[in-house]
């Protein structure tokens, strides 16, 4: 009695430990979510997971566990998304409507429209199911090896293909897995030998070697030398082949596709080219297509804290410079493509109005005064404007004017655009100071920073760009550690450096000019070029504030040309040889970056080239993957298609050999399906076993006939029809 109790307790403890390890392994699945997805806080999922696991472990009746888990789920949904009092009428209504809405969305397969609440709900249900599954695997079946392998594969895949750093996760998984496997194999052994844990007196001593071995192998594995990664980061190939609309550089910090996106709170990470067309623009030259600016640098990325005020207007005007700047009236026709995933206007500098005639009725525009974001609204919800014509006063900035600009900024500007995080390392500021040391005026200072990168061997790349670590500053990492990156790195660094020296600057997002695909003349005889702007043209650059002039665009990114226009009065032409360029539709001025003069057309074609070669790699990748997948599918379904083929074949051939092959194949299939035949088991004994398993007598009948063929050397072709039927039935039963 005492023994039984003791044993029960011991097994309970072991079971608990194993299940707890299962939970910890499962946590390894949740952990990367924070890094890899946009999930902000996964702790709530840990809590719910632990809750479900705990209830599963208690093995209470379903009528108790189900409501408990549902209530837990309700509380989490309530805490995360719903303001109403929990389980109140309004609360219920909200949940009901959410579910209804998402059900519709699922029916129409518009997955992206699914609301966060519903996605979280689904995820919680997944956790619930996992708790069941793992309970079964770990505690009942004691077969955790598969899960362990899956966990390791999961971590390594995430480590390889995303920014998630799985170094410690692997170590943790390994330790946990070793312990769990050791424990379970011990328990299994006990079961097999029918030894109760308590009878085995020194039962607990064995834990010691298990722990020691685990520790030893962990330390040995950790300390031993390892090869460097044996292949280059495969992400770009795969991503480039994946296609689809861009989420924008600066999503959650994971591997991204280039394109315009709204979330820039975590910059960094590699991204791949994406040639999805976003819009076509008819213009006389290459323009920056501006969308918005951002003002607050967090050390990791950009936030928009100046979203207000918003003017809800019928027509729009948005100018970033004063009347002192010379302008030329122009207009552009813009047609958005399917690839555009945002409901905002893209516009050139100096936007003065939209041609209302071609704007469909019902559209309104909300202009964010500070950022320049112009939302397109239809009715009350965001609506995408298909095509529109913008009229704009294209600015040309005069060098002397810029150099002579007063450096007294209005307080409002100072307050908004000199912000820097406290965490910004001093060396950034020092470097900025050093770069601008000898420059006297704001323009030259800005220019010095703009050209600093190309003059100091910074490299433009979209591959292997790291995300700053927890205590690392995005700009600091770029300036002092990596020294390679793409537009976000360059533009953010320039803004931060300027700000650190008291020059108001802001970070601007939009698109570069795009690729010229056609040239036409409009009614007035003006030459207009048609530009194709794709996700790859998504870009960020810098605007620097000059008192009395306004915001002037700068282009610090390696290999990119400033699409804004600068000129010198003939009289003042004393320096800056490159500054003589006039507005030219094909060659934009490239100031202070002579060795890197690169037209954005060639830039565009470079990108196209790059993605083409990516695609050719991708082709290989996909073919290999496809072949591997096909191979796997064929392998796992081998009994099904082989059976189909053999049935077809056996119906035709009626000789003894075929019969023999068919019967042996049936044995193989049955064996594969878990009804194992020992080599010393006679066919009759086995047939009886199979029949007991399937509750028939077909195997016995078939075996009788087969025995007559094999051991009696009797011709069974007369009974062929009956035999084939039995055989087919059995094969089907075995495979079902």
């Amino acid at each position, binding site marked *: 009695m005492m023994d039984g109790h003791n044993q029960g307790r011991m097994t309970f403890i072991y079971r608990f430990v194993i299940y707890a390890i299962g939970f910890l392994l499962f946590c390894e699945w949740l952990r990367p979510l924070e890094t890899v997805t946009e999930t902000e806080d996964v702790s709530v999922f840990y809590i719910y997971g632990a809750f479900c696991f705990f209830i599963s472990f208690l093995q209470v009746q379903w009528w108790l566990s189900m409501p408990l888990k549902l209530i837990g789920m309700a509380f989490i949904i309530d805490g995360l998304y719903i303001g109403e009092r929990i389980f109140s009428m309004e609360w219920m209504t909200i949940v009901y409507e959410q579910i209804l809405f998402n059900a519709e969305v699922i029916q129409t397969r518009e997955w992206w429209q699914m609301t966060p609440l519903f996605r979280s709900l689904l995820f919680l249900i997944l956790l619930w199911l996992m708790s069941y599954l793992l309970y079964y695997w770990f505690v009942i079946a004691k077969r955790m090896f598969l899960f362990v392998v899956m966990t390791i594969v999961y971590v390594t895949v995430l480590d390889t293909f995303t920014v998630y750093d799985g170094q410690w996760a692997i170590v943790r998984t390994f330790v946990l897995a070793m312990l769990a496997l050791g424990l379970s194999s011990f328990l299994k052994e006990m079961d097999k030998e029918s030894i109760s844990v308590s009878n085995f007196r020194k039962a607990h001593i064995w834990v010691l070697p298990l722990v020691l071995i685990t520790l030893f192998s962990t330390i040995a594995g950790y300390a031993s030398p390892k090869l460097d990664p044996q292949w280059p980061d495969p992400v770009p190939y795969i991503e480039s082949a994946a296609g689809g609309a861009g989420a924008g550089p600066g999503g959650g910090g994971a591997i991204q596709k280039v394109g315009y996106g709204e979330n820039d709170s975590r910059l960094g990470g590699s991204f791949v080219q994406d040639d999805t067309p976003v819009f076509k623009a008819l213009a006389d030259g290459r323009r920056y297509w501006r969308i918005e600016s951002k003002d607050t640098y967090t050390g990791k990325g950009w936030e928009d804290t100046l979203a207000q005020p918003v003017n809800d207007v019928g027509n729009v005007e948005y100018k970033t410079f004063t009347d002192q700047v010379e302008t030329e009236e122009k207009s552009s026709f813009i047609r958005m493509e399917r690839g555009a995933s945002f409901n905002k206007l893209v516009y050139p500098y100096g936007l003065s109005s939209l041609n209302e005639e071609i704007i469909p009725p019902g559209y309104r525009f909300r202009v964010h005064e500070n950022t320049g974001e112009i939302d397109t609204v239809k009715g009350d919800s965001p609506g995408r404007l298909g095509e529109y014509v913008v009229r704009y006063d294209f600015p040309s900035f005069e060098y002397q004017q810029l150099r002579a600009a007063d450096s007294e900024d209005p307080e409002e500007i100072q307050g908004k655009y000199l912000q820097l995080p406290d965490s910004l390392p001093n060396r950034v500021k020092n470097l900025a100071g050093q770069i601008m040391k000898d420059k006297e005026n704001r323009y030259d200072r800005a220019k010095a920073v703009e050209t600093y990168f190309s003059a100091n061997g910074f490299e433009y790349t979209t591959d292997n760009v790291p995300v700053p670590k927890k205590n690392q500053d995005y700009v600091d990492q770029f300036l002092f550690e990596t020294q390679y990156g793409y537009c976000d790195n360059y533009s953010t660094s320039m803004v931060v450096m300027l700000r650190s020296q008291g020059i108001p600057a802001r970070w601007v997002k939009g698109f570069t000019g795009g690729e010229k695909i056609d040239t036409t003349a409009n009614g007035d005889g003006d030459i207009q070029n048609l530009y194709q702007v794709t996700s790859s043209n998504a870009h960020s650059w810098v605007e620097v504030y000059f008192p009395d002039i306004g915001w002037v665009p700068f282009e610090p990114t390696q290999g990119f040309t400033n699409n804004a226009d600068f000129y010198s009065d003939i009289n003042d032409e004393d320096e800056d040889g490159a500054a003589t360029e006039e507005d030219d539709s094909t060659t934009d001025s490239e100031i202070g970056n002579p060795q890197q003069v690169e037209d954005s057309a060639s830039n565009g074609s470079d990108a196209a080239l790059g993605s083409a070669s990516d695609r050719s790699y991708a082709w290989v990748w996909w073919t290999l993957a496809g072949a591997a997948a096909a191979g796997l599918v064929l392998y796992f379904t081998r009994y099904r298609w082989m059976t189909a083929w053999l049935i077809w074949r056996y119906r035709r051939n009626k000789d003894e050999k075929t019969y023999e092959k068919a019967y042996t194949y049936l044995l193989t299939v049955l064996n594969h399906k878990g009804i194992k035949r020992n080599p010393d*088991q006679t066919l009759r004994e086995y047939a009886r076993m199979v029949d007991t398993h399937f509750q028939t007598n077909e195997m016995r009948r078939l075996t009788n006939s087969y025995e007559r063929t094999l*051991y009696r050397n009797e011709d069974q072709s007369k009974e062929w029809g009956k035999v084939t039927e039995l055989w087919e039935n059995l094969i089907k039963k075995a495979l079902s």
Partner: protein
Amino acid sequence: MTQHTFLFQPKISEVMKNINKVMIGKEDAALLSLVALLARGHVLLEDVPGVGKTMLVKTLAKSLDCDFKRIQFTPDLLPSDVTGVSIYNPKTLEFEFRPGPILGNIVLADEINRTSPKTQSALLEGMEETSLTVDGNTVSLSDPFFVMATQNPIEYEGTYPLPEAQLDRFLIKMKMGYPTAKQEMEMLSKTSGKHPIHEITSVLTRDELVDLQKEVEDVYVDRTINHYIVELVTGTRNHQGVYLGVSPRGSIALMKAAKAYAFIHDRDYVVPDDVQYMAPFVLCHRMILTSEAKFEGTTPESVVQELLSTTSIPVQRNISE
């Protein structure tokens, strides 16, 4: 192992029913005796006294309408007590041959290991030959001729163990074993009145039996089965615990026994199950274990079981010859 759920050959079924009227829980022993009888072999029963050895043979003899003889072997028994003796007849002035008990159809040689080897061999030689020479007269043995010898386990005092060469002449060696408590209860209640042996009648004539024996000879044994038998038998020769493996005579015996067993189950061809069932009874007494193996507790039975479980059953025809 027991396959009594299978249908018996109709005539054998009758015999079995008859035996079951008298013997309780001895189906296996009865079946094995019939196997030996049909395969024209002989049975050695090794067991303690009083478990029904004699009763089994008597019942068998009575069911078969055969001539039943019994020889009780004692240390002072002479060969002529077995074979018969010529006695001078003063009336005819000639020696007349008085046949001994060996000239019956079914002979029970009780406690065969209690007598001297000389007397033992008189019986054993008769078992192998179909005729016997006594005092210059050649006497044919009866047909059918079936010897069921019993012996006490050899550890018992005052026994002359049978030499290996003699043991080889028995097709089957088996044990009766004690009945279960339930069987013993049933047995007591059955024998409390008139003994059931007196109530049974013969169900098979002598000629029918000879016909059945001929039919058994015609049972088909496929090459695959022969291959299986040979693999088993050579297995005993290569087994490291076996000092002397089963002789080729053993292979033949196993094949014959399997044929008879198949026939009893109303099949005219042998399947591996037949061989598997018969192997322990046919092979065990034909091998000698090494002293080490004996010391380690290995028995011939365990050797045969091991071989059965390691030898693959032929399930396809393409076996390597």
